[in-house]
């Protein structure tokens, strides 16, 4: 790809608990191209939200980033001081966190909450300019300018979420991370919010990382999809290929389990339980539930390898080295 705007290299995030470290993110690497829409898919416990927060350096104790690099335009975010990072947040790297609409300050008008962002980054000191900018941002997300004068409780869920998107794009960031931005919303409102997100992203040519577990949403929105399992990326490929020809068995089962609107058919769940991140299974973390597990799986953890141009899989079935060995 062209020079990536964000490069994540071997990121490790652990939660320190009384019983030992919980490896929520266990060696994740990927690149994000400018203006790209990357979908990060996984069940709860796969580490996707932890990773999103790690990129923003917004993790709280007992979570700690234990290793790796996050390069934004070549600058390692993990090496910056808190003050330097604070200047980058919302300015160049922005986030719409999970349940964002519920974290709007209930006693402040929308306008004042947006002004806080400007103040924190020393932008738009001129009052008239501010008013104009806020009005413009609200219109960008499909809301009327008078929403600025309202309080959060006067708005519907979808409107609040769009305010959160407006706040996330206020300083024209290069990367926007959206963590389950539509999880509590109805299907029609969900569509409006996702289309809004898509429109503003295109407008800014910002890259978006959409974190979630709804494959349908991913199909509608993403250009590329990364599948996370037990804190690792197990597959990374363009969206069409993920849906038409998934390579990793987990991805295959995930896609098979999506209920279809085409015809009534049997439900195909994924048997077994999500692995413990405290004591992950040896070798490949998916092997206890994998129908195609064979000799190397319980012992060797497969690395993410490029099987095709732009396609990456972490699976012995597709690993050149292993296949070569097993044939020999």
């Amino acid at each position, binding site marked *: 790809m062209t020079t990536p705007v964000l490069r994540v290299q071997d990121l490790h995030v652990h939660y320190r608990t009384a019983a030992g470290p919980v490896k929520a993110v266990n060696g994740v690497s990927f690149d994000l191209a400018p203006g790209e829409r990357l979908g990060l898919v996984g*069940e*709860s*416990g796969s580490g996707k939200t932890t990773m999103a927060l790690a990129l923003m350096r917004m993790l709280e104790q007992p979570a700690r980033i234990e290793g790796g690099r996050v390069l934004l335009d070549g600058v390692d975010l993990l090496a910056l001081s808190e003050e330097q990072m604070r200047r980058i947040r919302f300015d160049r790297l922005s986030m719409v966190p999970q349940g964002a609409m519920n974290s709007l300050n209930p006693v402040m008008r929308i306008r004042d909450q947006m002004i806080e962002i400007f103040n924190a980054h020393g932008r738009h000191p001129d009052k008239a300019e501010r008013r104009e900018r806020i009005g413009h941002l609200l219109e960008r997300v*499909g809301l009327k300018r008078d929403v600025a004068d309202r309080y959060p409780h*006067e*708005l*519907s*869920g*979808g*409107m609040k979420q769009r305010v959160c998107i407006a706040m996330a794009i206020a300083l024209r960031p290069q990367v926007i991370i959206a963590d389950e931005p539509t999880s509590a919303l*109805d*299907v*029609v*409102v*969900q*569509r*409006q919010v*996702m*289309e809004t997100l898509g429109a503003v992203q295109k407008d800014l040519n910002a890259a978006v990382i959409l974190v979630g*577990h*709804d*494959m*349908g*949403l*991913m*199909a*509608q929105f993403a250009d590329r999809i990364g599948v996370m399992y037990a804190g690792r990326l197990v597959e990374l490929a363009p*969206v*069409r290929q993920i*849906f038409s020809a998934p390579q990793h068995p987990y991805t295959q*089962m*995930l*896609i098979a*389990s*999506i*209920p*279809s*609107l085409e015809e*009534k*058919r*049997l*439900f*195909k*769940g*994924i*048997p077994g*339980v*999500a692995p413990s991140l405290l004591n992950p299974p040896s070798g490949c973390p998916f092997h206890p539930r994998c129908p195609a597990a064979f000799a190397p799986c319980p012992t060797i953890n497969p690395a993410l390898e490029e099987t095709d141009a732009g396609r990456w899989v972490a699976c012995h079935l597709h690993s050149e080295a292993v296949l070569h060995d097993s044939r020999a």
Partner: protein
Amino acid sequence: MTPVLEVRAVGKVFRAGGFFKRDATVALKDFSMTIAGDRPVITAIAGESGSGKTTLARLLLGIIEPSMGEIRYHGVNLKAMNGDQRRRFRQEVQAVFQDPFEVYNPFYHVDHVLTTPVAKFGLARTRDEAYTLIETALHQVGLRPEETLGRYPHQLSGGQRQRIMIARALLLRPKIIVADEPVSMVDASLRATILESLLKLKQEFGISLIYITHDLTTAYQLCDDIYILYRGTVAETGSVEQVIKQPKHPYTQLLVSSIPLPNPDQRWGGDVPAMSERNNGSGGGCPFAARCPHVMERCHIAPPPLYQTSAESAAACYLYDDQPELRQRPVAAHDLLNPH
């Protein structure tokens, strides 16, 4: 034969406000439904938030009382039941709720939720018998007792917890289970297993389900017929095949077109529908008039009745006023399929 469950023109109004203001919200209006009981059926009640589906769930379970109309179980009005009838109703009409965590008392093991009904409804005479019953129920939902019993709720996954709840409902051998968004808070990959358990309830145990959801796709996969609710009234009803594949009501069409299909080549098309204001003043006409692309003058004046739009469906929309009205008697959508 007396139908098992009859909902007759039920409405619910919530009055809020303090001493001086009286704000009335009409959560549900003139809703009718029947479950005949001769064979098990899964009915979907679909709608977005504010549609009245949660209110309906609570009415069906007897948690709240209707403001208008009545609900009859085996011919007896819920309000007029004596002790024995109440007990029978309580045992035979069970529920599975949305949040698989909140439904467990954090003080006890998950066993508590299974041993309590056995004790209260006298389902077993000895402890051994009780545990056999419980273990059987767990097996029936695909769980292993040794992996689930004796644990605290937080030690199990959402999927496991929800299945235990289904096992709990099963234990009582109910006739009807009201499932209120049973998979919406469960991970996408675990949903299939739970839906499978729910389907088993009908196929193997002959239990009728009322599946309340906002997700039309799972409703399509699981259910036989469906009621689409909008702001407390029925917009469209009929068999899932008909209503979801060939929606007639503009609201249903909007819902179906907004479903994110898991197919990157079939992306949302068409216009982004008009944004609805949060508190729509109830004008008195069709509740969808403010957002409807086909709105006409008469839509603002009076709400349309249900017109029969096909052999298997009916929609409340003046666009179909050339069709016969569905007579105002309680009728189950699937009765349209097989008129006696």
